[in-house]
């Protein structure tokens, strides 16, 4: 188990360096520099521009900048935001809980609907339910997030007036963040109506963000289940006189979960990409929105740091998925 972990970590380190390089170079490929953007519409004099460029170290060759960035990184320093002058790490971890809360709810919706839907579709292959689920999944998968988000806002917020349009909680409530998760904080604050306000703010973005993972999980579960249901050991389970709950929910599902877990792990990456759009549409103060803002302001340290931290989170999740495999499938555990 330990060698297994070490080997996985060994792969992560070069990947990590790859990410630093890509993030560093791509943001510098964008036209415009942070100093010019800071000046705004009025612009600034040539001398002032040169002086500021020198101050931030942007006048040095790119490789030199990269090396000093890596040097800082090795000491755990991701730099300071050019705009807010706050450490990138601090900014990131202030906003991160909002994104986690949103992504977690999205993936919970996706798993708790997608998994049963895929299972039932597989066991009733060719039925109306099966066709409906598969058509729904295809639609969900093909729908652009921003358009789907706007549709939901128009319908539920605009026409029905059921949910708020943006933000994390109504302005009526204020309390100091404890966990950073609005649902938990609002419950702990003890203020009446705070929790339901937080929930009503969360529900639409979570549905929007969860739609694509939901579709993917439903389809993957269905196909994995169909394959497993034809296996000899499922016949053995039936031959034991076990009920459909045990045959499908235990014997078949345990095996079908192996490819499904992979897909769920991969969806975490998709979630972060989706969070950028979803957070922008719903003005959700998470890292997705923060990244978009940082890119448009050419806030180099924030973009580099943010990308790196997001990549780290995605890699960690994939590592956990790899470990989960072993728990579900003993064959993998023993050959490692």
């Amino acid at each position, binding site marked *: 188990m330990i060698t297994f972990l070490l080997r996985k970590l060994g792969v992560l380190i070069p990947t990590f360096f790859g990410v630093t390089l890509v993030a560093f170079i791509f943001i510098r490929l964008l036209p415009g520099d942070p100093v010019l953007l800071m000046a705004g519409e009025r612009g600034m004099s040539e001398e002032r521009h040169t002086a500021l460029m020198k101050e931030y170290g942007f006048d040095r060759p790119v490789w030199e900048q990269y090396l000093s960035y890596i040097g800082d990184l090795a000491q755990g320093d991701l730099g300071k935001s050019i705009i807010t002058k706050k450490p990138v790490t601090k900014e990131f971890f202030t906003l991160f809980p909002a994104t986690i809360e949103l992504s977690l709810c999205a993936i919970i919706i996706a798993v708790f609907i997608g998994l049963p839907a895929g299972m039932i579709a597989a066991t009733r292959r060719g039925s109306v339910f099966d066709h409906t689920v598969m058509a729904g999944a295809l639609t969900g998968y093909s729908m652009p997030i921003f358009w789907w988000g706007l549709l939901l806002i128009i319908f539920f917020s605009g026409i029905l007036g059921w949910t708020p349009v943006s933000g994390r909680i109504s302005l009526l409530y204020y309390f100091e963040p404890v966990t950073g998760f609005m649902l938990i904080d609002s419950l702990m604050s003890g203020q009446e109506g705070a929790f339901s306000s937080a929930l009503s703010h969360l529900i639409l973005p979570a549905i929007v963000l969860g739609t694509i993972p939901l579709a993917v999980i439903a389809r993957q579960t269905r196909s994995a289940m169909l394959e497993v249901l034809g*296996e*000899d050991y499922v016949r053995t389970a039936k031959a*034991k*006189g*076990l009920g459909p709950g045990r045959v499908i929910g235990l014997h078949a599902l*345990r095996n079908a979960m192996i490819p499904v877990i992979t897909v769920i792990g991969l969806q975490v990456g998709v979630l972060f990409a989706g969070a950028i759009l979803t957070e922008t549409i719903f003005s959700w103060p998470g890292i997705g929105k923060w990244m978009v803002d940082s890119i448009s302001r050419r806030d180099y340290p924030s973009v580099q740091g943010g990308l790196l931290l997001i990549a780290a989170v995605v890699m960690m999740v994939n590592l956990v998925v790899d470990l989960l495999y072993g728990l579900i499938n*003993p*064959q993998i555990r*023993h050959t490692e």
Partner: protein
Amino acid sequence: MPLLEIQNLSVSFLTAGGQFKAVDGVTLNVEPGDIVSIVGESGSGKSVAMLALMGLLPWTATVTADVLRFDGKDMLTMDKKTRRSIVGSEMTMIFQEPMTSLNPCFTVGFQLTESLKVHKNMDRRACNARALELLELVGIPEPQKRLSAFPHQLSGGMSQRVMIAMAISCNPRLLIADEPTTALDVTIQAQILDLLLKLQKEQDMSLILITHDMGVVAETAERVVVQYAGQQVEKQEVRGLFSNPHHPYTSALLASLPERSQARKLPSIPGVVPGQFDRPEGCLFSPRCSFATELCRTTPPKVASHEMGRALCHYPLAEGLPVGHPENREAAA
């Protein structure tokens, strides 16, 4: 009262090309303590008939029968729940591929005790004790260690022993073994067969052995049913079947045994079992039968008398000669 009573069992599958009859009018009685063997080539519907009895066929299958009774209980009309209380406890089955028949995600112990939990409501301690006893019974060394092993850590022979242990865990009255030794190597085959016979005697259960191996039949069975293209073509005591087969197909099967062959080249039956699209009109064996006449090719035969092994043939064999066959009559005259 027979333990198992099957009359005119038919199974057809819904395929892209229409309905395909895989089992056609199978009739079988099994008394308590009987060992019955069902023999036939691949595609003769041996397994399908037994899977139908167990209720293990996919939804594309339609099962019909005049009588389908186990221990006096009508399996045709009983609800699924009652059927499940019999299947896996009183009537169990083991399969051809032991390596894929065990679930790779669960330990041997878990799979072995599952039936006990479900059917007998045994607690964990009792289950564990019974599991050890069962593993010892089927001859698995170090049973305590094996309980926590996963199927991929077992060999084919070991897996089949575990399957057998699972099948006999609730003291069944009928064990159906569907080609239990086909996927195993020869030395293991004999061990598994011996084990099945030993258990059959000790547990006093009936055994239905599905096989395509006449050698296995000769060693194990008391009664034999020969099946061809979904139909039963002959039923006999094992001794009679080997000394005096009544159906030309049985005779041809026996002639193709290497032990019985005197020629340099192994004799074989030309052609293959008819499939969905090349089913002959009359006798299904007529295209491959050396005695076939115009009558055979046009009219389906009737079942012969008990003395003639209930052979499904126009000219059943007696001591190797077709009775009532036109050429034979000429020869006799």
